[in-house]
């Protein structure tokens, strides 16, 4: 079953990546006819690094909430496609985080890591010259762990899941003196998916020996209410933008009798570049 899910994930991610590449080829094709649309549809590539607060709970490891700091990064790539009269954009996000947390009594430490990939499309409504809103969907895969070295046969919890998320946001443009500024917001809410979880008292040793007991669970907001939201402020200079942001990321689940939450609040800084995609003979 897990193999099938992994295969499905690979296929979906491959399809999304291929779709983005196909789009680049389409743009190049238009350039051949003399219409330089690539500049009007630049690739917006952003990188953000953050530091913040992490609060984690996994009752498979401990009934106590652990809190501490987290380091994170988020790379984003977004580009308008030619679909929907140039109102549809393709976006891909890669998010990573490392957390170092302690129990309330400060006698134990846990380390966590997470890598997530999301990709999908948004439809944009340009309400005014300054304000636009967007809504769409993302397909994502999530891989992570939480390690508590003090535990005996349950020292760590592994996390793996795929999901489909609703995504919405907006963008507001204004100037500070003569400097163009852009305020962006995006919220992603997983609607359904599936995730790995050991059974309530099942050890990873048992799983490694072939034991299977509802280890792949259907996830939905009823048992895994999670969301991520990102608020950024771009100071737009000539070739790139300086980006400041806040990312709130809440992952929760309650499956197989195991409660989990991984809450992170990070303040982030980075940059955004606007890239023109060249066709092969222009390089």
């Amino acid at each position, binding site marked *: 079953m897990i193999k099938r899910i992994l295969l499905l994930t690979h296929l979906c991610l491959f399809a999304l990546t291929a779709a983005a590449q196909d789009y680049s080829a389409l743009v190049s094709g238009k350039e051949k006819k003399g219409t330089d649309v690539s500049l009007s549809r630049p690739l917006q590539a952003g990188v953000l690094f953050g530091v913040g607060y992490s*609060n984690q*709970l996994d*009752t498979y*490891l*401990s*009934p*106590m*909430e652990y809190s501490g700091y987290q380091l994170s990064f988020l790379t984003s790539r977004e580009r308008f496609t030619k679909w929907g009269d140039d109102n549809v954009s393709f976006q891909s996000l890669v998010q990573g985080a490392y957390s170092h947390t302690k*129990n*309330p*009594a*400060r*006698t*134990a430490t846990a380390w966590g890591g997470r890598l997530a990939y999301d990709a999908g499309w948004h439809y944009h409504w340009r309400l005014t010259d300054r*304000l636009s809103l967007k809504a769409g969907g993302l397909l994502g895969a999530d891989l992570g762990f939480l390690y*508590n070295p*003090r*535990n*005996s*046969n*349950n*020292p760590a919890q592994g996390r793996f899941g795929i999901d489909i998320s609703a995504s919405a946001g*907006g963008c*507001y443009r204004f100037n500070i003196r003569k400097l163009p500024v852009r305020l962006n*917001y995006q*919220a992603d809410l997983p609607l359904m998916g599936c995730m790995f979880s050991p*059974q*309530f*008292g*099942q*050890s990873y*040793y*048992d799983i490694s*020996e072939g*034991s299977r*007991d509802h280890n792949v669970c259907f996830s939905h907001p009823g048992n895994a*209410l999670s*969301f991520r*939201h990102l*608020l950024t402020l771009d100071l737009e200079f000539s070739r790139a933008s300086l980006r400041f942001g*806040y990312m*709130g990321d*809440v992952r*929760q689940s309650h499956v*197989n*009798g195991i*409660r989990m*939450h991984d*809450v992170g*609040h990070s303040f982030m800084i980075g940059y955004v570049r606007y890239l023109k995609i060249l066709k092969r003979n222009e390089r």
Partner: protein
Amino acid sequence: MKDKLLLLLALVLGLCSCQRGESEYDETPQGNLDALWTIIDQRYCFLDYKEAELGISWNDIHAKYSARLNPKMTRAQLFEVLCQMLGELKDGHVNLSSSMDLGRNWSWKEDYPLNLDEELRDAYLQTDYNLASGLKYRILPDNIAYVVYESFQNGIGEGNLDDMFYSLRMCNGMILDIRGNGGGNLDNETKLASRFTNEKVLVGYRSHKTGTGRNDFSALEPEYITPSKGVRWQKPCVVLANRSCYSAANTFVRDMKEMPLVTIMGDQTGGGSGLPFSSELPIGWSVRFSASPSFDAKKQQIEFGIAPDIPCSLDAGKAAQGIDSMIEEAREFIGGQTS
């Protein structure tokens, strides 16, 4: 426009506050006792069995030990009360761990004769024994292999086992002495046991909890030992055990009991058939407990140990003369098998 921005800000702040709190217990002595009692009540896998065997009631234990608490008691006093509460379970896999002490109940070995004299055992091994990772071995004068494995924490590789069994191949039999082996890594015991069978053998069953209810267990899953692809032992073997054989060593004896040419001699093992998990209390102390039970091939509990095929004990009088009567009985048994 300001209204829209305010709405957006409200949405952001609203989503930030959606996290759920989970910690239900406070850091008072009563809060810690309640947390510990609940962990055992919901996650300990032998509660019904222990209540039946030991004549205890976990519900009554909560009241009994709550009465010993007071809000002004010191951490050391609280630790003592909680350890006494856990001690009612008589389980070597149940520990309360703090920076000042390790709470434990080792009655499984402390209440019985040790049946092991390590100096005597060393005399049988002498000083020029072979040492293959965690395995000590030599050939006794009557051409019987004598192998000592003191802890399943000591890793053994397939290469170690191949070399050891190959070098002992001309022996008439083997004494595998695991007295005092308190357990360790289950992979090591499986690896060693797989050298004693030419066929896949059903050795027992295991289960795990599926919820907080006392009877929330998964169906029993069979456990097998499959023959190693390396060198396998084809002659009589005696496993020497005592009350200090616990946890993985207990599982090893369970497995070896099903092997065709193996005889278990010595004392009953100490038990410890629950795979331990860990949790913690609000005060920060770690608690370890049996979480997943395993059973023998007849689906019987082995939490309180496994009886030997041939009981024998260490004769103090012979020990004073430098003779380990248990090793001698094992040599005699193998001699009788091969003659």
